[in-house]
């Protein structure tokens, strides 16, 4: 019965929003009946009204409040000052996540793109292309929590002498080394976590870049080959420049996703052993420590970090257009 109640609620929600649509359509119909020159314009505005209300109330207004809170001291409502931002850049427990985030946002897009591009080139036109691509792409479909558990198992650590059930430590002990607790070696553990995100994102890079490669006109390739350009040179001087736009899209999209990621770190280490990132600290400060001001400042820093990536992307897009 409880389950039925939940599905009942779910149907209710769908019906409520269907009614919203019906209401909009009815309003638009009424306006249409008036038949003045303006009625088409009013109808258009009615169609977009619910989206505007939701975006203004659910995104724009909250964002403004958050920016205000970021300047309002640790709790978010004490006067006006920049101490929260100073804290982000000076307090060790926040500076470390900031540095880690910088490492993440450089490493993940670069490695995901390299792997994705290499794989797209290697399997292009092969007999098992579709199957081979699905293998790499599959991690995109699973949650970061699921992916983290998969990798936690790969990194699993048991004390020396015990049977290692994690693949990496089994290999290490198998060839005569001591087992390693990958999540606890400072500095390196951040890179072991980055591996997980690269594993997730490479499929996205591969898909977009593969489509770009297939979009290169045959004539260009033929002309280059007539000139005697083959192999690596063909890739370096024809393929790579032709897919530059897609490379930018991939790097920026993966970069933005990486800035905001926190599930991987939270699931694998909980942010311990110096592995935390900004997005996780945002969650901790806002929803665990109840320091809304500091949390808001972290969110604003994330937003500021996203901005230049997006602006660069837009400029590139306009150049290509």
């Amino acid at each position, binding site marked *: 019965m409880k389950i039925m109640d939940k599905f009942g609620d*779910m149907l209710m929600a769908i019906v409520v929003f269907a009614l919203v649509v019906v209401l909009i359509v009815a309003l638009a119909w009424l306006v249409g009946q008036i038949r003045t020159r303006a009625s088409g314009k009013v109808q258009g505005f009615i169609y977009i009204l619910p989206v505007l209300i939701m975006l203004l109330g659910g995104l724009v207004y909250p964002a403004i409040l958050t920016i205000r809170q970021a300047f309002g001291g640790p709790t978010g409502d004490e006067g006006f000052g920049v101490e929260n931002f100073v804290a982000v850049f000076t307090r060790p427990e926040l500076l470390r996540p900031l540095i880690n985030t910088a490492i993440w946002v450089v490493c993940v897009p670069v490695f995901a793109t390299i792997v994705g591009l290499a794989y797209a080139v290697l399997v292009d036109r092969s007999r098992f292309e579709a199957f081979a691509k699905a293998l790499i792409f*599959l991690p995109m*479909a*699973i949650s970061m929590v699921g992916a983290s558990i998969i990798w936690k*198992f790969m990194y699993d650590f048991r004390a020396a002498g015990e049977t290692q059930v994690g693949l990496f430590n089994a290999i290490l002990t198998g060839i005569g080394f001591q087992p390693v607790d990958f999540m606890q070696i400072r500095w390196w553990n951040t890179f072991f976590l980055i591996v997980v995100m690269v594993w997730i994102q490479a499929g996205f890079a591969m898909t977009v870049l593969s489509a770009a490669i297939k979009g290169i006109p*045959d004539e260009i390739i033929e002309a280059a080959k007539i000139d005697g350009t083959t*192999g690596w040179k063909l890739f370096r001087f024809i393929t790579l420049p032709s897919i530059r736009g897609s490379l930018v899209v991939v790097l920026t999209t993966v970069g933005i996703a990486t800035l*905001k990621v926190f599930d991987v770190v939270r699931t694998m280490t909980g942010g311990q052993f110096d592995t935390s990132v900004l997005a996780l600290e945002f969650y901790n400060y806002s929803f665990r420590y109840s320091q809304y001001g500091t949390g808001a400042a972290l969110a604003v820093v994330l937003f500021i970090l996203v901005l230049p990536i997006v602006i660069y992307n837009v400029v590139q897009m306009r150049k290509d257009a």
Partner: protein
Amino acid sequence: MSSNVPDAVGHENIVPDPDGHENTQLDTTGPESTVHEAKLKRRGHSAAGNAARAISSPWASVAAVILAIMWTTPTLGLFITSFRTQEDIQNSGWWTAILRPWFTVKNYEAALFGGSTSLIDYFVNSLVITIPAVIIPLMLAALAAYAIAWTKFPGRNWIFVGIFALQIVPLQVALIPLQQIYNALQLPSFWQVWLSHSIFALPLAVFLLHNFMKDLPAELMEAARVDGAGHNAIFFRVILPLMKPALASFGIFQFLWVWNDLLVALIFAPARANAPLTVRVAEMSGTMGGQWYMLSAGAFISMIVPVAVFLFLQKYFVRGLLSGGLKG
């Protein structure tokens, strides 16, 4: 996995292997190389294919196979583990199960119905959260996209730019005040999640659907108007049927995104009564750190639906990826 999965860009280019082996090699010198060459000719050449062949195909094949193995092994390892007994997992690595296979579904039973995890409840929650969170933004975004593309209300270009720009706002920037607003309105937990996912999906949905819609031929709209159709009729009878591919591809994208989400769920639906699988599985990872029999089964229970969606609707999912720039 079916070997007939359409590939990433929608081409069907799987050739059945005459030997019946599933190898992913790029062998162009094999016995059927003439067939292969012929296929290449028919499809035209590609820079990368040529490059790969010229880089010397044996090495290219080896590299491709190694990458494929590296990407598949982690999942395979946990998957095999999820079917092993608790004792076997403790005492030997999952790779030994390939030589001495002994499998059980006990872990899944325990994870789904056992009192300490009862993932079945969370599975229901995931469904209840995800379905409206896909349908609601799709309905509203389609209407808005039509208004921007095919009606002429003043300021629509600015509104479009504004909506597009909202894609770059990280969710984090909106979460705390949104929670305060919900609390003031005393919204039930499910409603908080549905609304949040819908709001966060709208910028990308409007952007993608608008891009698709504005490419439809204007003559269609003109013809319908001559026949006396108003905006309502044009939207429902002409546009919506043509929009199916775009709606499907964004719908799948949104489905995977909501199903796999952790942040929004942690904040708006943390309690057992309405938390989705991701929240519970993440929690298990903390409290049952070493209990791989539970954790592995739990992870795969949370993956079944998205992986099924991925395998069956891969074509649309990829189409959504390729038409979309940024996801906010």
